[in-house]
């Protein structure tokens, strides 16, 4: 600092980076790990558990990223689960030969790759439609995508007649293929996740487009006055989310076959991870690595609970708690900081008076004292006098 302004000495870069406020999820992970490692070591600590965890949850992480993209521009996409379910059922039913399921009008016996392309295109178009409703009809994204979600759900029901289907052995190969890497086998979903996460990270944090997306999310009016086309970014982010949802749908169809209920269950963990992730690394900004970390931490918690024989249905309890706690923490951090700043900046609160007293005692001739300051300063001098005696 070259001029007269007071240099505030913050904590070092190292301690700031590793502070619980910045990477609390890592500490949470360690805690969960220790608890279950002691509780159920014979199952929790096996490599099979961890490889399975990475693979199974990669699709949910992808869903969280698909939710994250619109959220950076200030738009909720609550239709993500429905979009995934639609792509999943489309991809499966299109492959079924007509003679097998004559009541399904979409059962045309397509090759799996063609069905996959159509599923992804349709999911992208659905994202486009959501974007149109949000930016052109100017309907609040929460309401708009909730409505879209239920419309898509009905269509999914229509094309599948609510029946579960198994994937053909050939199609199953898509998600099961793996590249060995050291001790791990990187399956296709994990590879897709890594590619998507890197791409989204680059766009969000390293390009002008990403900067404008964050600007649009933080303050749409201010961003517009800085030349940011807010509506176009919001629309585009819903389209990108729809595309990713399509990819997730295809991969989950290959992995699990077709079931109407599957995709919808992804919304809550995805939202929880995105909000918990926003409290990690970037101090309040939605970000990719925070989201990935948060989701895997939550997944490890769920996995541990499964291993100690807690029924799977209770995992939503954990996700729900995580979502509320994450939002509460980030809100508290924001308003707490502001309240403290106001208290310290004004002279009449307790903190302000204490600060003034300390300053008055430290400085020899401060300029222009207010009556309060003068009074406090006299107190300070008297104190010193007492000490001298």
């Amino acid at each position: 600092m070259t001029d007269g302004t007071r240099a505030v000495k913050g904590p070092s870069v190292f301690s700031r980076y590793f502070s619980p406020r910045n990477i609390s999820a890592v500490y949470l992970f360690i805690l969960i790990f220790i608890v279950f490692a002691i509780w159920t070591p014979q199952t929790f600590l096996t490599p099979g558990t961890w490889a399975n965890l990475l693979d199974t949850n990669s699709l949910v992480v992808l869903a969280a990223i698909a939710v994250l993209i619109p959220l950076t521009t200030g738009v909720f996409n609550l239709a993500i689960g429905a979009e995934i379910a639609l792509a999943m059922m489309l991809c499966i039913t299109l492959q079924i030969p007509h003679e097998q399921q004559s009541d399904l009008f979409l059962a045309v016996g397509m090759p799996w790759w063609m069905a996959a392309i159509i599923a992804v295109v349709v999911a992208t178009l659905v994202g486009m439609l959501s974007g149109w409703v949000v930016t052109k009809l100017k309907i609040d994204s929460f309401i708009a995508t909730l409505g879209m979600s239920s419309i898509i759900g009905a269509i999914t029901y229509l094309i599948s007649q609510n029946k579960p289907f198994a994937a053909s052995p050939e199609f199953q190969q898509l998600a099961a293929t793996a590249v060995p890497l050291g001790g791990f086998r990187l399956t296709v979903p994990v590879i897709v996740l890594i590619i998507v996460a890197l791409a989204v990270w680059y766009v969000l944090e390293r390009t002008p487009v990403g900067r404008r997306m964050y600007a649009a999310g933080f303050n749409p009016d201010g961003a517009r006055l800085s030349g940011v086309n807010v509506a176009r970014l919001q629309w585009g982010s819903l389209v990108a989310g729809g595309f990713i949802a399509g990819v997730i749908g295809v991969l989950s169809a290959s992995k699990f076959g077709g079931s109407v209920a599957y995709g919808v269950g992804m919304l809550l963990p995805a939202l929880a991870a995105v909000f918990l992730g926003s409290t990690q690394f970037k101090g309040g900004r939605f970000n990719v690595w925070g989201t990935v970390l948060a989701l895997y931490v939550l997944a490890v918690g769920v996995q541990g609970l499964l291993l100690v024989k807690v029924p799977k249905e209770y995992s939503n309890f954990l996700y729900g708690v995580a979502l509320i706690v994450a939002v509460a923490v980030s809100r508290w951090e924001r308003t707490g900081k502001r309240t403290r700043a106001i208290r310290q900046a004004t002279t009449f609160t307790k903190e302000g008076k204490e600060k003034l007293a300390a300053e008055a005692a430290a400085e020899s001739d401060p300029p222009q004292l207010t009556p309060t300051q003068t009074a406090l300063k006299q107190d300070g001098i008297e104190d010193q006098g007492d000490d001298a005696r």
Partner: protein
Amino acid sequence: MAAANRPLLRITGMIKEFPGLRALDDVSLEVHSGEIVAVVGHNGSGKSTLVKILAGVYAKDAGEVEYPSSTAEEETGLHIIHQDLGLAMELNAIENLGIPKYQGLRESLAPAPVKREKAKATELISRFGEPFDVTVPVGSLAPAQRSIIGIARALDGWKHPRNILILDEPTEALHASEVRILFEAIKRLAADGAGIIFISHRLDEVLELADRIVVLRDGKKVADEDREHVDHERLVEFVTGVKAGEAETGRTDRTHGEVVLDIAGLWGEVLDGVDLTVHAGEVVGVAGVLGSGREALPAMVFGSELAAADEFNVAGAAYPKRDPAESIRRGMAFVPGDRGKYGAIRDFTARENITLPAMQNVTNAIFGVDARKEKAVATELVAKYDVRPPRPEQIFKQFSGGNQQKIVFAKWLRNDPTVLLLEEPTQGVDIGAKQALYEAIDAAAAQGAAVVVCSSEAKELVRLCDRVLVLRNGVVAAELSGEELTETRLVLEGYGLADGDDAVDGSEGQQ
């Protein structure tokens, strides 16, 4: 009545501090029964702080508020009518009058006595002249009728007429004819024995209505005079603190280039056909009271607010359909009045804010932001505009108001704009930063920018401008430059008080 000659309200030595600012400095005030006291002053003079302390929104730092004539049988009440009346626009007058009543569970859930309520509402309202329909949503009533509902609601609980009623800028949304209806209502209340405090910055209305006029300037009381001792000119002197005839005049030292901004007939929500021509290197001010169109003009020129124009040329090229992104591409820059809401992204760092409008010159070959180049740009600008602390990585909202504004200036002046639009450029900014911002504006003009400054501060316009357009009711009422451009003239023209043309007649002529 022994209490008759005691004041209803006595404020002594009121002090209120904000960080780096004394909003009220030893202000004393008395209001007697039957008296209308006007409290006048510019924006930031302390008027609204005073009201907020009386309302209990702020806690005072020192001073006394007493009700000397208040007794056990006749307790003095205090009611405040805020500028936005706090009415529910979808509900009707009866329902609005009932909002503050019915406290507690039993009263709240009991069925409302509709007929009695209606009769009572009509009776309350007819005290202020011709009664109107109390069963239609108040949103469909005239603004003056809404004001009367607001007053009637305050009066509903009065057990006796000797209470205090504070009206905070009540005429802001009213037309001249409606102002008259409201004034009649206020005079009736005073005649009944109420003490009225009328807060306004419309000097003509104050002179028409008040019995006594109190003027605040920079938090201090500078005048407390009976109406008959005050005329237009003295009141302006009190408000501005400048004696007529010995004021500074506008700038004549700048050299102007070609016409850069040329607008004919700008129409919008409050603008009614304004012509604006600005040359390169020229600083043109826009003055006028709130509601005159002054605050809407820069946003309409920039394209962030809808407006139509007969002709609109920027740097010689026609620019018929405007939007912010295109305006930036054409070399325009806009520093809006509300920097938290429109001027910046509060959660971004200073660096991110500075580069946001023009990121194309800090990118690298792979479409990414060149972090080193961006940081260098931000560091240089933060130093150039003397932002304190000079840390480009600090979050915008953690800077003080003046430094925030310096960052907003840095953001827009980075690309040497050809047209610089400024709205209240130094609002809420301390003296030191103010000086720095004025120098930045001077430098931009010297570099050949066409500058438009819209400001409510007459002093600022005189300091900065070569020429000032004074708007009144959406049209240009006067154009002042050189010797004519003084603070006093600006204020007089803004209120329509110049050279004997009476403001109220003038505004009626506009309708």
